């Protein structure tokens, strides 16, 4: 990562800085003192869904080795409307972010949100009162994600009581992050209201109080992904009740059947307090680069040096955010409250907080 930070500052900078531009943060990036080797396991989690049917999802758990004491937790929710299916599907789910947060000392859980079979889909449609035509408009992994994440949290509680991770999981220090449709699931757990088949499902049904902080990569705009804006005689939006800390990241190339600029809107609608948004003003950086494609530079579609600079920037803010709200590191909070990441971008990065 050190090499990445150097590349980042070289790439973004128009000229070599005459003096240290971001005191205390070399190359204007946040870095924490220690990294860990990582052990990886895989398991299934089974729970009963809202219809009473048994649902099983696979998760990959990355455990930092050699870190003593209770482990803070990050759950990474992948995107995609088709789900990730089959044995081993969770291994590659947001694997770049998952590997990084595990290496930084966070117990990291990466689920594969399995698609439903037709009978399972029909059961959900009956539950929400959707007829056949309306049922087709309900994306099942989007419906399932908040429930799946809740099941993961329940499993972590159980495994903290017995088993190899007993007594190692810090249930008071959990973050949930997600990309694209995974970010919608993440924000739903944080308190966002969704609307399926004309009926709203609010925090009392979908939120979970256990996570302390949330990361939304490529968040969805209003009018998309069952999220809504204000309307005549209705001042509510999907994001009104998100009081806990949130970091968002998107950019001008983050389209994927949505407007990149409109992906900025959830930040505007969230109540102030511990909210952050990184905007990468570069259309070379596409939707996948905010999620699963970040580690491979979109399979080489993005020039290596630029990709590494983006990796360094995203990792910097993600790490600072997690360290600030899960590890309570003052230096991390200082970084978030500064404009150092914006300085690094030299106009390519916009950092907003409220």
């Amino acid at each position: 990562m050190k090499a990445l930070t150097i590349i980042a500052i070289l790439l973004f900078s128009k000229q070599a800085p005459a003096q240290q531009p971001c005191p205390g943060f070399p190359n204007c990036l946040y870095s924490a003192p220690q990294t860990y080797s990582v052990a990886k396991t895989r398991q299934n989690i089974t729970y009963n869904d809202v219809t009473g049917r048994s649902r099983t999802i696979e998760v990959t758990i990355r455990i930092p080795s050699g870190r003593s004491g209770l482990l803070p937790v990050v759950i990474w929710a992948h995107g995609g409307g088709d789900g990730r299916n089959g044995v081993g599907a969770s291994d590659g789910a947001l694997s770049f972010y998952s590997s990084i947060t595990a290496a930084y000392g966070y117990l990291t859980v990466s689920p594969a949100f399995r698609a439903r079979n037709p009978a399972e889909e029909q059961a959900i449609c009956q539950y929400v009162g959707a007829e056949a035509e309306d049922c087709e408009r309900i994306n099942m992994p989007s419906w399932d994600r908040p429930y799946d994440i809740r099941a993961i949290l329940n499993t972590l509680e159980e495994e903290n009581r017995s088993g190899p991770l007993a007594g190692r999981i810090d249930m008071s220090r959990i973050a949930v992050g997600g990309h694209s449709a995974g970010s919608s699931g993440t924000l739903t757990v944080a308190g966002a209201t969704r609307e399926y088949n004309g009926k709203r499902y609010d925090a009392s049904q979908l939120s979970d109080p256990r996570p302390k902080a949330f990361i939304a990569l490529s968040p969805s705009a209003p009018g998309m992904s069952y999220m809504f804006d204000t309307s005549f005689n209705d001042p509510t939006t999907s994001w009104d009740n998100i009081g806990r800390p949130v970091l968002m990241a998107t950019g001008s190339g983050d389209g994927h059947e949505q407007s990149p600029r409109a992906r900025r809107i959830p930040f505007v609608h969230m109540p102030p307090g511990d909210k952050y948004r990184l905007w990468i003003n570069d259309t070379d950086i596409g939707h996948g680069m905010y999620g699963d494609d970040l580690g491979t530079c979109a399979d080489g579609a993005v020039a290596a040096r630029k990709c590494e600079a983006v990796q360094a920037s995203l990792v910097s803010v993600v790490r600072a955010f997690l360290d600030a709200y899960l590890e309570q590191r003052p230096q991390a909070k200082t970084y978030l409250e500064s404009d150092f990441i914006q300085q690094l971008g030299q106009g390519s990065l916009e950092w907003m907080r409220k």
Partner: protein
Amino acid sequence: MKTTLLAVFHVLVSGPVAQAQFPPACSQFGPRCLYASPVAVAEVTALSTSINYRDAGGETRTLDVHIRLPAVTGGSLPVVIWSPDSAMTQAARETLVSWSEATARAGYLTVTISHPLRSLAQQVRLCQALDLEPRLCAVFDSANWDWPKDQRELISWLERANQSGPDALRGRIDLRRIAMAGYAAGGDGAVSLAGARRLLTTTDRRNADDFTDPRVVAVVSLSPQGPLNEGFFDADVFKPLTSWMSMERPVLLATGAGDNNCVPAAACLKGDTPMRRRVAFELMPAGGKYLMFVNSVRMSHDFLGTLDTNACEQAGIEPSLCANFREWLHSAVLAFLDAHLRNLAPAQAWIRGGLIREASGSLAGWETK
């Protein structure tokens, strides 16, 4: 946004803000800091006509047009053309009446157009004439194509009418001072004439549909469309172009927190949400661009077009607030037109100062770039 209800409460309780609370910049605009055009015409005569032209497929398209001619003696008059939404199917004389009367009374030769909708068979023939692939034709809304075409044809007709038209119009039309104003689809057409590109007959952004018409010097779009629907587009990966980046002429966009016509609200495949409408403004280049955003959910999408205070009240909104909405919108649009078509210094001062904020007790936001 969370100030909405508080701001409504403030306006309802306190009524119009007392003049003493206004900044000095308001002093020339009366006790409520609202802009009123210095041109106030008591008498307006009207005439209706129809315009025919051949569309891309060679079929005759007939436009119903209603002209309001302010009784101003001598000289040519600046022009405002009003174009409605595709859901407004009334005759031109009954279309956007409040808006049309307001600009006519302010001394603008005001032309209101009524666009005919196509039958399914006509739409298919247009698709064929435009050589649209079946997959594009399946999602092609002919109104998106016809509205800007109709607007351009209307301007051409005005050019002819100024040369050899009825006595009432001949020599009375100032062709160098034409504003295109519209609501919803009409506004979409208006911004298209001002240079906004659209993906209607192609998916290639570099060759997006271009309806630019240099004869329009300023544009008003009420309830503007944001990216994704109706052919408007944002940037995407390796695609830096957006619909609005070529818009150099002055534009006023007006919308508000209640201006949501997405059906369904959380899966918006048609229409737009209030905040997404603002994106159009964000993506326009700086220079003569204005955004009025009424930060109240009590002003509806329909109201922006009709300004119908009766319907507003019947929807349960306080009469004073309905009246305020109409006055604020009238004031802002007339100030914009007077600033850019007449170069009137007070109008320029009012819009550059964003004095609608003062006039509305901050319920109406105003952004300039």
